[in-house]
């Protein structure tokens, strides 16, 4: 949080001593300023909803793609490789455009901006989640599988009760990273008209024509959001660590 305060102070100081700044657009002491600030903040809802929905889908998809990658069957491993390589190679913006404009034509259905955004972000991210899960699961000692075998656990139970709980503890920092990444990448969905933080800022810039101030507020919005999320992830990590008491 200290970092954040520093940045805010620095920006305000800069603003105070330069003639180019026009803080009136977002001045909380004027009625118009408050209206504008509220307008900018109103994008928060979709930024969070979009990112959280996308990360949930992406984590589940990532896990489902990671598991065949660990199989002894080479066709299953091949599926994992092709999925990861292909999906990882598509730029996120291109994925968003393709899912929103292309996919509905292909499937013959219409898609809301929200779901196009969720699918595109989740799809893009799932390749990275798959690699994270694969590394996490591979880091678990093979003795854990062998012990599971000797107490008659089947594959699903072994994964569910033994391997994944340990793997997830290890990859939690990486998963937290992906969530932060997702929050930032959700700004790209503004290009298809999603009413999230960045879109709101763009719209306000068009009417107020004060890009410097408005985008500065936008930047701070992301900064606050992400610092809060990071703190939450770190707290969760600590909690899991003390629960496990693993040496």
């Amino acid at each position, binding site marked *: 949080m200290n970092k954040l305060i520093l940045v805010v102070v620095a920006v305000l100081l800069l603003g105070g001593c330069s003639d180019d700044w026009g803080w009136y657009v977002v001045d909380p002491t004027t009625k118009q300023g408050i209206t504008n600030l509220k307008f900018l903040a109103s994008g928060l809802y979709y930024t969070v909803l979009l990112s959280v929905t996308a990360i949930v889908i992406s984590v589940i998809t990532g896990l489902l793609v990671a598991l065949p990658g660990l199989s002894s069957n080479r066709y299953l491993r091949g599926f994992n490789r092709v999925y990861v390589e292909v999906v990882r190679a598509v730029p996120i913006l291109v994925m968003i455009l393709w899912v929103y404009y292309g996919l509905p034509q292909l499937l013959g259905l219409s898609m809301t901006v929200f779901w196009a955004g969720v699918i595109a972000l989740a799809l893009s991210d799932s390749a990275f989640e798959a690699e994270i899960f694969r590394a996490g699961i591979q880091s678990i000692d093979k003795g854990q599988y062998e012990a599971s075998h000797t*107490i008659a656990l089947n594959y699903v*139970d072994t994964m569910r009760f033994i391997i994944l709980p340990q793997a997830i503890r290890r990859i939690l920092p990486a998963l937290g990273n992906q969530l932060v990444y997702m929050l930032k990448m959700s700004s790209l969905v503004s290009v298809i008209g999603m009413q999230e933080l960045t879109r709101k800022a763009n719209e306000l810039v068009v009417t107020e024509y004060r890009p410097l101030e408005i985008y500065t507020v936008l930047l701070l919005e992301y900064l606050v959001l992400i610092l809060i999320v990071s703190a939450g992830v770190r707290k969760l990590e600590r909690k899991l660590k003390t629960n496990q008491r693993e040496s």
Partner: protein
Amino acid sequence: MQAAEQKVIKVKQISKFFGDFQALNNVSIEVGLGERVVVCGPSGSGKSTLIRCINQLEVHDGGVIEIDGTTLDGSRNSLRAIHANVGMVFQQFNLFPHLSVLDNLTLGPVRSGKVTQSEARDLAMNYLERVRIPEQAEKFPAQLSGGQQQRVAIARSLCMEPKIMLFDEPTSALDPEMINEVLDVMVELAESGMTMVCVTHEMGFARRVADTMVFMDYGQIVEKSDTDKFFRNPESDRCQEFLQQILPH
């Protein structure tokens, strides 16, 4: 002796390859119900591979293994025979670090649908008493000493109520002062009539509980005889040499 007539483990001429390397070469052994077999031999001789084939942690390449009359062929049925009959204790314990001792013990019985959660708890406490650490039930593995961890691992296997227990150098990873507490538990288990196949170099333990001694070298069983005879006059030179090396002079 009549109990030993019923062979619960039949290993017939099995071989096992890792790539080009042959870890087991035409190995045969039968173990009767209630029989205690101790397997020894130099490092790399195939002892672990043999007992890992018996519960199919390794799949043998040639020959036949039967557990309690069921041929191990990778089928569901043969997997069931292993799960129902064979427990195993590892050198490295392999406890589940994220679960409490109690959860380590109850997970198998509960998930295999044999018992309810509360029955499993009673079962687990019962076996923790037998390995003499009921007071550690709520702890996590990392909070226990090596000897305690290995006893938990033994109890975890026993909770599945197997007919046969396999031990792969259960005391080799332990500090010397903890070896006896684990061996004591194993002696008691032997006295209770459990069928046991133990890979170990604890010859005092072997003399005390083994009915049959097996000496392996280069992926083969070089010598297999009654315990008395094995220690009094081993037939092969290699076995004699090995015993001289590991027995106190």
